[in-house]
């Protein structure tokens, strides 16, 4: 029959062995981290982005490398799902991209009293730099590609070769089609844009895109603050969307 001292020896011996093994493995792991995480590509901007991530407790809702709180999307590969243009627009005011849906706090990514325009832009750029760096970490295959996926028509699906979208400005391809569809490609939140130039004249469209709320106060379409050349490019493209 097992004695108490034998039991004690089992406890102490087992613990010591496992602890030694764990420390040795940890040393090897730490030595591999710089290469596996591309530490040499961690620019000042990446580090500052990491700081912004921590400071706002982003993992209190999101997950990154699968670690966090499962209330908001997993962000390890976010830069592959969404373009930088889309992410920039989103961070400025998260709720306007998903009106009436799950909320995200508006952090120091927009030009408010406390943060100047320059500071806000830097915050966004650094955060995106951090995400671009994270996306290249060797994570042993996480997150896995969906293996039961039907051929789905998400906004992120590649644009077909003969689509009119190929001629669209980058902003339309990554932001507008988050909600609107063109030739069946894009979101279903707002109406499809096929033939939009037949339905509305150029002046009305300009007014609507530049400031939707001034045309229709209860619309869910956000004011994206578009102006100048960017607004012209978008309207020129919309003008080509004719069916007749």
């Amino acid at each position: 029959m097992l004695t108490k001292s034998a039991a004690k020896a089992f406890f102490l011996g087992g613990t010591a062995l496992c602890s030694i093994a764990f420390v040795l493995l940890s040393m090897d792991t730490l030595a591999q981290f710089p290469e596996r995480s591309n530490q040499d590509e961690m620019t000042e901007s990446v580090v500052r982005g990491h700081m912004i991530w921590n400071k706002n407790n982003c993992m209190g809702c999101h997950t990154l490398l699968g670690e966090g709180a499962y209330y908001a999307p997993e962000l390890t590969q976010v830069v592959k799902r969404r373009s930088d243009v889309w992410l920039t627009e989103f961070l400025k005011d998260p709720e306007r991209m998903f009106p009436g849906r799950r909320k995200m706090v508006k952090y120091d990514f927009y030009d408010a009293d406390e943060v100047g325009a320059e500071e806000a832009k830097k915050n966004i750029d650094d955060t995106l730099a951090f995400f671009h760096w994270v996306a290249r970490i060797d994570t042993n295959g996480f997150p896995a590609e969906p293996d039961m996926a039907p051929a789905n028509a998400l906004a992120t699906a590649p644009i077909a070769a003969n689509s009119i979208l190929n001629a669209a400005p980058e902003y339309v391809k990554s932001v507008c089609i988050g909600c609107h569809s063109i030739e069946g490609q894009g979101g279903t939140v707002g109406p499809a844009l096929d033939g939009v130039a037949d339905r509305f004249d150029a002046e009305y469209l300009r007014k609507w895109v530049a400031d939707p709320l001034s045309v229709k106060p209860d619309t869910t379409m956000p004011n994206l603050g578009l102006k100048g050349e960017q607004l012209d490019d978008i309207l020129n493209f919309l003008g080509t969307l004719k069916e007749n």
Partner: protein
Amino acid sequence: MRFQSQKIAWYFFAACMGLFVLQLIYGFILGFDRMGWEGLHEIIPFNVARATHTNLLVVWLLAGFMGAAYYIIPEEADREIWSPKLAWIQYFSLLAVGVVAIIGYHFNIWEGRKFLEIPRPLDYLVVVNVLAFLFNILMTIWKGKRMTTTAMVLFFGLLTAALLYLPGMWTFDNLVHDSYFRWWVVHLWVEGVWELIMGAILSFLLIKLTGVDREVIEKWLYIIVGFTFLSGILGTGHHYYFTGGPSYWLMIGGVFSALEPLAFLGMALYAIAMARRGGRKHPNRIALSWTIGCAVMSFVGAGALGFAHTLPQVNLWTHGTLVTAMHGHMAFWGAYCMLILALISYALPEMTGRKNYKGWMPEWAFWCSNIGMICMTGAFAVMGVAQVYLERKAGMDFLDVQEGLEVHAFALILAGALFTFGIVLFVKNFISYGLPSDEAMIANASEADATASDSGSTDAIDGAAAPQA
């Protein structure tokens, strides 16, 4: 209760009750958020409520462990606490640090690292506080009349828990590095050294409640904590699968964390076997229910549900989903919350002299809270598994899936309400006992002398004879 200074444990337990109730309130905020009712978003957004919910748990469990030590160590060492004054200072400073940290979260003052959100200056205060606590406990054991295995395992658990707090204060610019050491704290606490504390408190309760000989109980205590470390230390690897670590962690983490349920199974079988074997019918049956309940629910929550998603082939899909919340809730409830509630149930009549463990209220507290937690775990399981298949495997959009799951968040809230009803009964029962009194101490002491069934261990310094139970 045999020593006057043990009374301080009551104040730690009272703090546990208050913080626990507050934790549940924040749990409801999180549940309603998930249901789509984000009315408090402007004041308490999800990440604030989440940090508060988990940190309140950590603070009240730590307060519970400290209270447990202040209650158990004098009895095991057979003397008063070395410095009750230091214990009081430590009590108030712990509460102050905890409350300041939690208020700070509401103003974005935090480190933003899951479970270790507490800001750096407060980290140092926690360290000083815990050092004072450990010193007090160590001096009590050192100057005591005997040195039991139970006391030593408890002290070793508390000491290593304090030491393992330190890697969490080591931060790195590299996210991968940062995450690596964060798990040294979180994993090696809850699946490592906290289980020593758990084993020791369970031993103490089983010795008191079942009357089984100390030698037998403590022998099995060594075996169980031995298995805990054998599996738990290298089992840390299950946090390193997909967070930037080399691929050998898939194998090592997988194999060793598959063994982790054995330690918990051992704990459950041990509690059940000792309770059956015990000759003594201790009148406080509800304390025994909590004790065995703790061992069984920790096996189900931490052991079985942990195993359900710990293998790398499964975890590739479940990592970072609500499946983790399913496991986390029952694991913490079974292993650590029930443990503290078990000790409180045992200690209250001893400290106050009132026998309020009779009647319907403590029984209903036990059953409602446990059934409520099982239902909550079920709701999380449905949400987690649905999320894995729809989002991870079928590639649906995150928010679309989450909105589809809102109805299950409603089920979660209903289950949480039943759980909360149980806890409110427990707190009402706690209050009904009133304050600890010295008369109770004297009465208990004479009773203990008369039965003298808590035999000394062979480790005992005074070499007390060990009559067989």
